[in-house]
């Protein structure tokens, strides 16, 4: 074994990271101090911290908060809501699919994976149709059960659009959550539950004193992973609402895209880069926690 071998073998990986990850990151950082736009590729002017100032002063629709802060805030609420749904339904769903009282577990476990396998862009188009106010199945069910008298136009109002895109995102991430938590549940020895039964513990007590502590490491890992993925989520919102109505669903990724590629007059590369810095910062922060939890569990 020669000493150089591992370096030769990892060279493509290192090169790929340097050229397509670290260099672009450096570029985002540098561009955030320049004024530039796709309109005129030759125009490029150093503006210092002006782009960052713009982030906190430029207002659109919302008189109380700057465009960037409002997008950042929407991202936080949207991500918390979606990840919250995923974690709660994930734990409950996985426990259900692990319960010995449930018949047909194998079938359910297979069906549960399907949404995960559907490309997000296509799943979003399917949801757009499923939520259609006149001909969507959601409204048929709601009307047939007499929960609503008139069809609901889910994506036309700011609040309902915000909640709907959140639920659709939760739908896309839920299968992954359930499968991962299920794999954690299956490692809990049955004897723990038997001992608890002898001691007279009920189902609720067993859930909080055995199940939750035992799956805590997996739960933490998947929650962090899912938070990052949700924070980066773009396809769903773009296809369902394009950030509307009235920028109600303009989370940070959607806002970055708009500022860079659509609002060419008052947006541009520099401002979008400054916004991206915050996107990267949040992802990096969560990654640090994620890597720490992984290191605790394995020799890394």
């Amino acid at each position, binding site marked *: 074994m020669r000493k150089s071998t591992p370096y030769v073998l990892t060279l493509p990986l290192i090169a790929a990271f340097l050229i397509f990850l670290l260099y672009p990151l450096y570029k985002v950082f540098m561009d955030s101090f320049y004024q530039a736009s796709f309109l005129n590729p030759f125009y490029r002017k150093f503006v210092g911290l002006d782009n960052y100032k713009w982030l906190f002063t430029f207002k659109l629709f919302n008189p109380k908060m700057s465009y960037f802060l409002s997008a950042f805030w929407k991202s936080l609420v949207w991500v918390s809501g979606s990840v919250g749904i995923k974690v709660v339904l994930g734990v409950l769903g996985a426990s259900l699919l692990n319960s010995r009282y*449930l018949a047909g577990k194998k079938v359910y476990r297979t069906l549960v994976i399907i949404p995960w396998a559907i490309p997000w862009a296509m799943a979003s188009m399917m949801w757009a149709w499923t939520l259609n106010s006149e001909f969507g199945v959601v409204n048929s069910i709601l009307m047939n059960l007499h929960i609503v008298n008139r069809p609901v136009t889910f994506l036309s109002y700011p609040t309902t659009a915000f909640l709907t895109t959140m639920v659709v995102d939760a739908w896309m991430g839920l299968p992954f959550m359930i499968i991962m938590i299920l794999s954690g549940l299956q490692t809990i020895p049955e004897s723990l539950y038997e001992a608890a039964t002898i001691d007279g513990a009920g189902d609720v007590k067993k859930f909080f004193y055995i199940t939750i502590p035992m799956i805590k490491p997996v739960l933490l890992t998947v929650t962090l992973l899912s938070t990052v993925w949700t924070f980066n989520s773009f396809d769903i919102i773009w296809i369902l609402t394009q950030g509307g109505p009235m920028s109600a669903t303009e989370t940070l990724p959607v806002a970055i895209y708009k500022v860079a590629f659509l609002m060419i007059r008052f947006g541009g590369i520099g401002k979008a880069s400054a916004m991206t810095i915050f996107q990267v910062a949040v992802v990096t922060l969560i990654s640090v926690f994620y890597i720490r939890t992984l290191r605790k569990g394995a020799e890394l």
Partner: protein
Amino acid sequence: MKNKVLKKVLYQIFAVLLMVFLLLPIYQMVITALRPANLPWKSPMPLIPEKITLSNFVTAFDIVPRLPRYLLNSFIYGIGVSVISLLVAIPAGYALARYNFRLRKPIMIFVIYANMFAPIMLLVPIYVIMKKFGLINTYLSVILSGSIFTIPLSTWLVTSYMQTIPKGIEEAALIDGCSDYSVITKIVLPMISPAMVSVFIYAFVTGWSQQFILALTLIKTDTLMPITQGLYQFFTRSSVRWNELMAAILMSTLVPVTMFLLVQRYIVKGLTSGSVKE
């Protein structure tokens, strides 16, 4: 006893409700794809279609004649991304699993960190770089930029698979005078074929359809668009051809969905290695 029966019934109801939530859009897709396009819409839409036809699967190609082209483009993006991912991930994954070198730990940590990156975070510089090299509107732009997001997990999958194989055979080959590199091609590659298959499928499916935003930004020519963008052709100015759109989605997702279901177990294993002890 009564308690147990009640629990069984209750759990069954919960499970069905969960499935209704998870399979709802898929159900809507199937009934819409099978419903005759000339049948007037009814509101609320009947949950069971009144009539069933397969004609939407044919007319979809009349409405969007480029459909086969979009599918071919997606296939090219998928193959490109998976080939690059394999070429980078196999040697790197092998080195990370077998050699104890100084950069090993930093690289491993960076691989995990890189796995957290999404196209939106690098979209602006990627666009600028691709523009500089005149790669906008080329297959290469989407393939190169797409690969960077599949390389981390691919490397991770190869590394964790390698770690489950005992070193014995490779060591014996080295003692017999085999060089470091021929050990890889002659002994390691055949052994890790399951990992290669899952990396291939994971990267293929991702490149095929998951990188919507990359193609949205880098591809402007109609003939180079992947299927995810081509489907927008079903949205005309006045209406959306839902029946044919759903038929097209059903046709185009069948293969990648099946492929993904086959390897999902390995992906789960790769992602949880460390946090789930088996």
